[in-house]
């Protein structure tokens, strides 16, 4: 899912390497996955992961389920919590003379302080085929030389105090974070000052970043879900919309030092940035320290961003990505969505909770998995994005049942669009958001990030405070209207990654026009068309047997 802090390419690499830790079943995992919050996709990490595709699971009413049917002694949930405004700590907001928007989120308790700087520039400010990849490359280079410090000195400085320093760019924005024990807050401020105001972009440091970006791009071929997501974005948003662009190794290889410097000069400006400081801080003293560290950052007008349109396409179109070694098929499909600041966003989020945003409680999971055993896991999401993003469903299924799963899921979308959710479903969604919203903001740094995200999307701090209340305010009428308006089962972009020999006949039988491509083929449709050698199936069109 894309969110304001959408993951940079390099972060995916870190995740890939991290699997070394996880797959070993190593006991001491310190960061449990949190899969919550409005718009959270719900495909992975479900407890008793999605069940039977064995075909052996009976329809609801098999011998296993019959045991509990009609019983009156079953455990019921207590009454749900009442939605309330979030008790945020007092947030002190001010602006430095150079335009930097500063928010202090003090909470005493643990002696930790975390700084988050958001630059309102990212992948959306790149130029297709000319500077693609430059935003994240620029961010990655910051800690490789700044002020009088070398890359080693920067790493030494933060590691010496046991802190963490990171910079990365997503599509909407660039984020720098520094956290440390409160006694080392000045180490963070001094480093952030150097990284933001005085980066040196040493040419000799570029090879290391290039390698990491290339490794991350290589890794997407190994990951069916990522492969499906990239194909889906390209198919839905097209080559004219940055969400549809595909970053290729040649883009990464082409980036020059001059481009990095130019991107930094144009966009890294205090009037184009926000800073949040959360944790054990004394607001009065902290303001003075921030001014000393960042007060000399000079403002300048920032280039505007081109407007992009999500192409309107009618009908169903599909790409079948052949990865013959896979025992499962990965399915992703959907259509254009809405932006976070859209007045319909709350209602659409609740509708999605009912449809596929609530793991086992969702209609998709119940119908596609529990009743029919057609999938191992299925979930859906509207993002929470600056621009209208995508509504997407993603599922993993046996190759043999890919189209059956698709059909049932599309039927569910149609039903929800036509009839809207029930009062009982809305009540459950309300209880969920009322209960879970407060603890998705457990730590001060989570509060800070939520506030920055809301600000970036033009929603304001009040959005964070009133989130549960606004979701609870969605009633049957507004939910039905949102379902009708924002679900579109007739105009879909569909991607299946799996065994083409098994999946293709199903799509053909269903009358779904599709293009078949190899998992090694370029993800971008334009790059495929430009390929001198035609694809085995002929570029585009349905592949004949």
């Amino acid at each position, binding site marked *: 899912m894309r969110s304001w802090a959408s993951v940079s390419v390099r972060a995916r690499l870190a995740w890939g390497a991290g699997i070394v830790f996880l797959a070993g079943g190593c006991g001491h995992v310190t960061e449990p996955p949190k899969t919550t919050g409005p718009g959270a996709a719900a495909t992975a990490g*479900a407890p008793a992961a999605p069940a039977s595709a064995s075909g052996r699971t009976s329809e609801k009413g098999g011998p296993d389920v019959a045991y509990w049917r009609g019983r009156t002694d079953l455990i019921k949930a207590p009454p749900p919590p009442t939605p309330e405004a979030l008790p945020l700590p007092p947030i002190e907001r001010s602006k430095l003379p150079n335009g930097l928007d500063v928010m202090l989120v003090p909470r005493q308790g643990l002696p930790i302080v975390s700084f988050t700087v958001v630059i309102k520039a990212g992948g959306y400010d790149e130029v297709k085929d000319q500077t693609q990849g430059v935003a994240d490359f620029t961010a990655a280079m910051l800690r490789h030389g700044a002020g009088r410090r070398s890359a080693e000195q920067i790493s030494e400085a933060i590691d010496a105090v*046991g802190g963490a320093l990171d910079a990365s760019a997503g599509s909407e924005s660039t984020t720098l974070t520094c956290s440390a024990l409160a006694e080392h807050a000045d180490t963070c401020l001094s480093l952030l000052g150097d990284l933001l105001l005085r980066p040196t972009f040493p040419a000799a440091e570029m090879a290391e970043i290039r390698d990491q970006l290339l490794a991350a791009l290589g*890794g997407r071929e190994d990951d069916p879900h990522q492969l499906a997501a990239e194909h889906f974005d390209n198919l839905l948003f097209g080559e004219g919309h940055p969400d549809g662009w595909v970053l290729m190794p040649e883009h990464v290889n082409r980036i020059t030092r001059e481009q990095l410097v130019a991107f930094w000069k144009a966009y890294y400006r205090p009037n184009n940035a926000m800073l949040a400081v959360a944790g054990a801080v004394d607001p009065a003293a902290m303001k003075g320290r921030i001014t000393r560290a960042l007060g000399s950052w000079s403002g300048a007008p920032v280039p505007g961003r081109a407007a992009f349109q999500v192409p309107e396409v009618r009908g169903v179109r599909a790409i079948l990505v052949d990865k013959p070694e896979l025992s499962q098929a990965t399915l992703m499909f959907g259509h254009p969505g809405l932006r976070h600041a859209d007045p319909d966003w709350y209602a659409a989020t609740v509708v999605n909770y009912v449809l596929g945003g609530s793991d086992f409680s969702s209609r998709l999971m119940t119908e596609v998995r529990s009743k029919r055993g057609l999938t191992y896991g299925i979930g859906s999401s509207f993002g929470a994005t600056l621009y209208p993003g995508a509504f997407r469903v993603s599922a993993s299924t046996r190759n043999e049942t890919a189209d059956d799963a698709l059909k049932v899921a599309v039927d569910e979308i149609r039903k929800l669009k036509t009839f809207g959710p029930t009062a009982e479903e809305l009540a459950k969604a309300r209880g969920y958001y009322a209960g879970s919203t407060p603890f998705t903001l*457990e730590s001060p740094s989570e509060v800070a990030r939520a506030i920055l995200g809301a600000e970036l999307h033009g929603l304001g701090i009040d959005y964070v405070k009133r989130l549960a209340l606004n979701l609870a305010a969605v009633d049957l009428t507004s939910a039905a209207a949102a379902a009708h308006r924002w679900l579109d089962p007739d105009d879909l972009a569909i991607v299946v990654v799996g065994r083409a020999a098994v999946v293709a006949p199903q799509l053909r039988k269903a009358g779904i026009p599709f293009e078949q491509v190899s998992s090694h083929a370029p993800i971008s449709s334009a790059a495929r068309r430009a390929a001198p050698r035609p694809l085995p199936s002929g570029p585009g069109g349905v592949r004949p047997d």
Partner: protein
Amino acid sequence: MRSWELPNGLRVLFVANHQAPVATVQVFYHVGSKDEHVGNRGVAHMFEHLMFKGSEHVPPEEHARLLKEVGGLTNAFTTEDVTAYHQTVPPSYVDFAIRLEAERMRNLRLFPATVDSERKVVEEEKRLRIDNNPIGQAIERFRALAYTKHPYQWTAAGVIADLEKVTPADCKAFYDLHYRPNNATLIVVGDVEEQAVRRSIETHFGPLERGPAVARTYPEEPPQTAMREATLTLPVALPVLVGGYHIPGAAHADIPALQVLATILSAGESSRMHRRLVRKEQLAVAAGGFAEAMEQSGLFLVYAAHLPGRDQEKIRRTLLDEVAKARTAAVAAPELAKARNQLTAAYVFGLGSVDGVARELGLSELVEGDWHRFLDDAERYDKVTAADVKRVATKYLIDSNLTFVTLKPQAPAAAPAPAPAETAPAGPPPPPAPKAGGAS
């Protein structure tokens, strides 16, 4: 921090934490994949799934649904040593979460159809995470090579051929032996009061019957006397090398020094491995090491991930050379101080989430044998000297104690496709990845 035991043997750990309106209820069972044997490998993890599939008063999957209605999140994990179930809830629903956990501790209803369908799910998860994942395969292979007798030779993902054979009766026997109050630790952390929690636990868990004592005898792993090596060739875009040395169990006095050494080798970009392999020699995109602490004996792992086309032999040599340095030269005082600061800060950061605190307490209690160890961690790291680090490196990180697995990219599919011209031909698919691990 409070700890007490119920008459039926259930150990309880409780921490009141009023920083945020949130609480967590976790049950750690002292059973994992090391309690399996050849013939039922994977059953512990399968059981983790079955615990969501219905009990006397909770229909299949309702456990998660009921908690969701009140805003709760629930999940579970299985390791070699423990199976843990956790739910994060608004504080006023702690009693409800405790009630649900007590219900499934002794009231599970296992139907043959449920066992069958869940078996398929667990097998698919294994295919997805291990068999379709090159790194998963490397780890599985590594374990099978590093251990010859001890059940740590397979991972919690299990073995499909074994899972196929597990019967509902086997499941029932497994449940009746391991899912008992005297084999579990209940942990509650969060914005709740001790008296209310005590009452709730007494009400819901108090009546559960104590089970027989679980015998914990495992085949002893003979000391390794010579280096073991294997190479896997797979279609992979990011090749990996993994080496590992046997180290003692998690409670052993040498573990803190090994943790400090792992920190020196791989924590942060100023760490030795990163500086040498990623920066100085630009051989790898990631490199590091960590002590994988398990209950009976652990592994000190070192690894590097690199772009295809790099010299794997050189990477291997360099990785092992960094390990050798730890044996021959004493750590300088500033490097030791840095490692201590990193460990202390990481510890304090970890205190920020009730879920994380409960998890660490549970693992300390069951894997290290005493929850107090979680509290004393920082103190133990502070006592580690440069001489300790050198001593443990010399004792454990030696070639005759090393197992090394190289994941080699299979040409040509794994080469990065730099230009659109490299559109893959329709040629034959890469051969299915060789199944690794568990083949004892």
